[in-house]
């Protein structure tokens, strides 16, 4: 049975903050972030936006492109490291809002920035097993970086949703192969009750991100008997602008192959939404027959890799919901650090 993506959608908050506005508060050198990490600005969620609200909007865009009845969705999985509740699933609110309840399996995933691809992987697996007709996997985050920390320049917000199914007539892109690469690598974490995450600085690079992403990419290439030149597009997890470029170079992919899905310089790192949103930007422009490699990364650490082949239907459905580059560029409002700190609840308010 051929299983693949029958609907996809993204959602991105409209506010942005520029790297310069963060750097000037902390006396840091904005130019070094722009040049060294290729970060220029990031998305900022409003006080009334969270992982659930972003997920619902992305899910509705995916539904619009799929044309399916939400009652036929047998599973809704939300992957995030910023679920609004510690105990109460995000997935049920999303499923309720899109009209998929009650005949639906819901679960929340958490694996740093890899949680979104986990949801996609499990939804794909359940459809492949014949247990459900359609399954939705969502990657969404409203991530926090500690004030003044390097992560504050990148931690952003956004969501992407994918509906997996086996309908030949609705197929937008087939899933041709999957591969996952996991090790215990303590590069980034957030302990219970902590507001901000902690990380291992430079340890997040070579032994963590690069080892894992290249391990997953090499694994799926070998498993599928494909070479870098067999792909039109590649999207890696994007903690900054530099890492995915370097991973591509190590693996033998060109800049042209990663360019379309590399959104981080203008969007920031949307954590669980990162490579999934990049994939939506690729599907927005891909031609039938194009092959796509997606490789997520979650600290801790692991990568899920997928090989997709685009089908003709992508041309019919891509404009049934806003395209991702359009969401990134239109109606954008820039905020300064004070408003950003309020939006991100970094200001301690008086008890009432």
């Amino acid at each position, binding site marked *: 049975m051929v299983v693949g993506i029958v609907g996809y959608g993204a959602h991105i908050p*409209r506010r942005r903050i520029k790297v310069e506005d963060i750097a000037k508060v902390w006396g840091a050198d904005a130019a070094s972030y722009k040049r060294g990490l290729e970060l220029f600005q990031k998305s900022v969620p*409003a*006080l*009334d*936006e*969270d992982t*659930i*609200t972003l997920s*619902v*909007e992305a899910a*509705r865009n995916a539904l619009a492109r799929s044309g399916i009845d939400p009652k036929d969705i047998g599973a809704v999985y939300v992957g995030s490291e910023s679920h*609004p*509740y510690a105990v109460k699933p995000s997935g049920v*609110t999303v499923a*309720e*809002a899109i*009209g998929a309840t009650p005949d639906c399996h819901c679960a929340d995933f958490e694996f740093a920035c890899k949680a979104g691809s986990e949801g996609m992987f499990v939804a794909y697996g359940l459809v492949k097993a014949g247990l459900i007709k359609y399954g939705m996997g969502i990657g969404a985050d409203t991530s926090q970086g500690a004030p003044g920390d390097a992560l504050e320049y990148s931690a952003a917000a956004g969501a992407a949703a994918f509906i997996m199914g086996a309908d030949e007539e609705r197929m937008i892109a087939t899933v041709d192969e999957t591969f996952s690469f996991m090790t215990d690598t303590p590069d980034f974490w957030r302990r219970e009750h902590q507001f901000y995450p902690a990380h291992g600085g430079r340890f997040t690079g070579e032994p963590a991100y690069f080892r894992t992403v290249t391990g997953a990419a090499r694994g799926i290439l070998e498993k599928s008997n494909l070479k870098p030149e067999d792909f039109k597009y590649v999207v890696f997890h994007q903690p900054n602008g530099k890492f995915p470029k370097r991973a591509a170079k190590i693996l033998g992919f060109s800049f042209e192959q990663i360019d379309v899905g590399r959104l981080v310089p203008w969007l920031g790192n949307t954590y669980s939404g990162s490579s999934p949103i990049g994939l939506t930007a690729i599907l927005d422009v891909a031609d039938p027959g194009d092959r796509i490699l997606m490789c997520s990364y979650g600290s801790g650490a692991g990568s899920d890799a997928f090989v997709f082949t685009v089908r003709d239907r992508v041309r019919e459905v891509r404009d049934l919901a*806003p395209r991702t580059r*359009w969401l990134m560029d*239109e*109606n954008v*409002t820039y905020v300064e650090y004070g408003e950003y700190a309020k939006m991100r609840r970094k200001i301690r*308010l008086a008890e009432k």
Partner: protein
Amino acid sequence: MPPARSWRAYPQTYRLEAARCSKCGKAFFPPRLVCNKCNGRQFEHFEMKHTGKVVTHTIIRTPSDEFSGQAPFALGIIQMDDGPRLTSQIVDLPFEELRIGMPVRLEFRRISSEGEAGAIHYGHKAVPVRI
């Protein structure tokens, strides 16, 4: 707002479910038991399209406690494309750009929460339609 009260309104707050009178076709949001146009008692429930226009608007600077952290904010009456009118915050645009008649879309947002430990209430707020 007690969680049970919030929960009872999910069809409307989460999915914008309205009811259309089977006899005369008038749509109501929220649904009602008797049509005020034809006294009909049969209704078909449907999810409204999420688009509409601003009928009127104001700026709330001194809200009730539930919304105190959000002030100032814009509040408007929205004429939905499917017929009913509803009251909604209008967000994601500067107040000076608010216009009567402007097209809006209802987007899923946090409406309020019971402090830091209580339930979070979700619903819809109007955002300007992106052109």
